[in-house]
């Protein structure tokens, strides 16, 4: 999903998640409106917004364990290590989030995707603040999620990187 800043990409994503109210129309998941099956829908959903959703005075591992717990999962320590290593923040598990750089925080936030078992990923500007290596890695992760039959709704104002990945492009204009 592409479009200039302020065109309403984030609002649309929040509607897709069921956070923002819809004035008209409806959003279906498995042919049922999401508002009538919100518990089921939320099990299938993993949302990553502009904010990293990381509690600053907790360690990276504690944060990952907590967000996984919200989805009802309890990841093993070895799993956490693997995921962090994959996202280029190897060995940072016991560090407090507030001691990480912005780029590292974003990577930790994105590493939640690898722990999630949700079918639908809703990602708001995931490529922002990532270097070239990070972008490629994230693109690979999304591609493999799609390959496994998953679904991803992604916004980006950088058309280039998303174009190679997306089977469907949607451009929002005012």
């Amino acid at each position, binding site marked *: 999903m592409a479009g200039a800043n302020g065109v309403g990409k984030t609002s649309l994503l929040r509607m897709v998640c069921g956070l923002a109210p819809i004035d008209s129309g409806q959003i279906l998941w498995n042919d049922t409106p999401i508002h009538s099956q919100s518990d089921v829908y939320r099990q299938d959903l993993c949302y990553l917004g502009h904010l990293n959703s990381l*509690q600053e005075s907790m360690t990276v591992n504690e944060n990952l364990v907590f967000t996984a717990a919200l989805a009802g999962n309890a*990841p093993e320590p070895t799993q956490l290590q693997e995921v962090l290593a994959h996202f280029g923040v190897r060995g940072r598990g016991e560090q407090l989030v507030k001691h990480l750089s912005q780029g590292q925080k974003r990577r930790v936030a994105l590493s939640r995707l690898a722990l999630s078992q949700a079918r639908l990923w809703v990602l708001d500007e995931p490529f922002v603040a990532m270097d070239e290596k990070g972008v490629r890695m994230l693109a690979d992760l999304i591609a493999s999620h799609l390959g496994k039959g998953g679904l991803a709704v992604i916004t980006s104002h950088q058309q280039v990187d998303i174009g190679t990945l997306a089977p469907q492009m949607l451009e929002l204009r005012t």
Partner: protein
Amino acid sequence: MKKLGLFGVMAALLRREVSVALRQKGEVLTPLVFFVVVASLFPLGVGPESALLLRMAPGVLWVSALLAAMLSLQRLFATDHADGSLEQMALSSTPLGLLVAAKALTHFLLSGLPLVLMAPVLGLQFGLESRSLGILMLTLLLGTPTLSLIGSIGAALTLGVRGAGVLLSLLILPLYIPVLIFGAGAVEADAAGLGIGGHLSLLAALFVLSVFFAPLATKTALRISLE
């Protein structure tokens, strides 16, 4: 990957809140210090006459505890709102009402319980006897969870709002009145030689009511703030 039940999720939230609070000790200590300071101001304001202080003690200690517990309410959801964790909780497959109840429980554990433990020390300053001290602790123990539950509604309503702190107190202090009346009343009634069974069961009834209704209202208010 292992799966967690509802209680597993709530326990994870509880563990998170407690570990954060223990790392930021100010969050637990500030309300406690506030409690001590406010309660100590009263004798300075009304004079050291011990009979008067003794009569005022239950009310003064209850009001101070109530204000102290309110002090930390504003932060109940504010940090999670700012860093986006609140959105994740709202999108969790665990019912938001349960998560909110767990949040209120942590507020009680971190703000209410320390006040309960501190109250007898302050009660001694006012010359309360050990029996009254015990009843004061008991009523605070029964009442502060209700304060946390009702307070969470106010915290959710004022999330991200201008002047949230003052507004929060304006919204929830009137709702605290019944708890205050029965809580402070029990100590007074016992000192006057009357039974306190009625007070305690009414406090318990208020707690049960707020356990059922407050998370529902808080949950609705949070979803509104997140829109």
